[in-house]
């Protein structure tokens, strides 16, 4: 398990222990990765984050078109593996969780403990700092720092 924000670690650790999930990716709605568990390649993380953020944006737009409130979660149930994609609000903005799980657990357990993790993250989050100006010369440095934190390299 790797986290960018240390206060995410405890809720994520509990979620992993209780839900039996295989892979977890926590990200912002813009696809910026906050924490990951189970991924071994940075390229996979970046692709999954971009796809997860894109799917969430699409479903939220669909909900808007249908005049419905936001969808709570999206589940793809495969024969050997399932995917759960859920979004939740935190004091740091709206976040997305992408969870892959196998037949050793169930979508009910994943959903139950995902909601619990979302509440714990919202409670543990420190107040948001004032947004700093993103400069081109800092961007690559910050991206590399995030990748080092997520993959320990």
């Amino acid at each position, binding site marked *: 398990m790797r986290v960018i924000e240390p206060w995410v670690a405890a809720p994520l650790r509990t979620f992993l222990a209780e839900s039996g999930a295989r892979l977890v990716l926590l990200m912002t709605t813009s696809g910026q990765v906050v924490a990951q568990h189970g991924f071994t390649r940075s390229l996979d993380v970046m692709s999954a984050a971009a796809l997860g953020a894109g799917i969430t944006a699409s479903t939220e737009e669909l909900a808007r078109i249908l005049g419905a409130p936001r969808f709570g979660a999206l589940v793809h149930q495969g024969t050997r593996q399932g995917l759960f994609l859920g979004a939740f609000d935190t004091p740091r903005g709206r976040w997305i969780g992408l969870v892959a799980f196998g037949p050793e*657990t*169930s979508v*009910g357990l994943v959903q*139950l403990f995902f909601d619990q993790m979302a509440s714990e993250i919202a409670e543990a989050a420190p107040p948001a700092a004032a947004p700093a100006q993103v400069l081109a010369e800092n961007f690559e440095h910050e991206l590399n720092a995030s990748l080092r934190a997520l993959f320990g390299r």
Partner: protein
Amino acid sequence: MSARYVEALERVGRVRGIRGALLVHAEDGLVVAEALLEEVDARALAALSAGLVARLRRSAGHAGLRPPAFVHLRGEGGMLLAVPAPDDLLVVAIADSDANVGLARLEMLEAAGRLG
């Protein structure tokens, strides 16, 4: 909610000491139908009881035993009862400590049989 599901749960719920019953999809751990008291979190009960039964099934399989036909979990404040039903469903009930478990078991087995 299908009438036969409601009827099956209501019969279980009429047994003395039964606080409520629900139908759960065994593989997904999701609620199919419920007849529970308001203070009981049906979603949590469904997910956790399906997880428990799945683990018991796996344990029994590894031990060379047949899957459990009736699960009875006793706690300090009450009991959890579960019976597998056709179509990968589970009939789950929560009961007081002094509930009539024998009658509850019969009604749950009958409810499971009627769901086939």
